[in-house]
């Protein structure tokens, strides 16, 4: 091969090598950036749980808040606090918190706010016998806050 041709081929390969290395470095840096972002997002996802929350009013209105993101360890009280404008009474460490109003609908002597947990295994609503502030939520849980009459006990579960 003629020396001149060889020189130009070598020069071209040199340009290719340096440019290729720089572009590869650029994509490596991009890869690392997105990998870090993905890992940060994944670790954030590990520290949150998604739950479904139903609010059921006495006039028949039902509002679902599906896939509501909450921190791990959240309670049913934290869940309703996150999605609605509520009022509550705190009865201390042992008894916990009682929700007395959700979105302006206030408990009275005949009606009040009760919360239910969905038993996925048996496909039915269950009425916990303790405060919403003590009901620890798990990933994928479904809960309901229903405004119901005290006239019948146990009250009818939300439908």
């Amino acid at each position, binding site marked *: 091969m003629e020396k*001149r041709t060889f020189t*130009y081929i070598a*020069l*071209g390969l*040199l*340009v290719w090598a*340096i*440019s290729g290395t*720089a*572009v590869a*470095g*650029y994509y490596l*840096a991009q890869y690392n950036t997105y990998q870090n972002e993905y890992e940060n997002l994944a670790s954030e996802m590990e520290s949150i749980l998604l739950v479904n929350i139903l609010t059921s009013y006495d006039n028949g209105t039902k509002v679902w808040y599906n896939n509501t993101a909450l921190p791990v360890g959240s309670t049913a009280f934290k869940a309703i606090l996150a999605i609605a404008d509520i009022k509550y009474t705190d009865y201390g460490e042992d008894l916990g918190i009682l929700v007395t109003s959700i979105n302006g609908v206030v408990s009275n002597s005949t009606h009040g706010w009760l919360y239910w947990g969905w038993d996925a295994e048996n496909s039915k609503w269950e009425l916990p016998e303790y405060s919403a502030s003590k009901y620890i939520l798990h990933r994928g849980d479904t809960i309901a806050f229903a405004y119901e009459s005290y006239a019948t006990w146990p009250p009818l579960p939300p439908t």
Partner: protein
Amino acid sequence: MRSLPTRQLVLLIVLSALCIGIQLTPRPPNVEFTSLVVFLVGAIFGISFGATLGILVMFINGFLSPWGFAGLMLPFQVTGMVIVGIGGGLYRRTRGGLYDTGSCIETAVLGAFLTLVYDIITNFGIAVSYMLLGIPILPAFISAIISGAIFSGIHVVSNAAVFGVAFFPLTNALQKLLGGEKTWKKEPLLT
């Protein structure tokens, strides 16, 4: 000291104005024709002419660029363009001032190479500005090279294409226009 013939001086000024005009014209990022003109001038008139044009163009561009005053980058841009001009002059020596269609591939490779050298030098200028902020020079240089890799790639590929396609027709036209290389030697002009 050898004085510059009037025609060469005028041509230098006109080409500088042309390069500045091209530099200031809206165009895709990192697609430019200044390198080609400087290389072309070096390839026709020699190293000193090409290098001088490189200095003039980048010096003026450093002040008039739409991106603003080049500042610290100015000496690096000037150095890079001087190397392009010198490259043109050296190419002239290897070809004896005669070019043909076969020189298209050679000039494409040279265009890519000189553009890459220019980009490395200007990236070094960016690294120096990082260094002034307290970053060690080697990581700053690598960071500048990597972050500018895509723009540099566009610059290299576009200049390879521009040099490969435009160099021969332009040298041919310019040499015809000027009446051949003899016109530019310090001899009386033919009348």
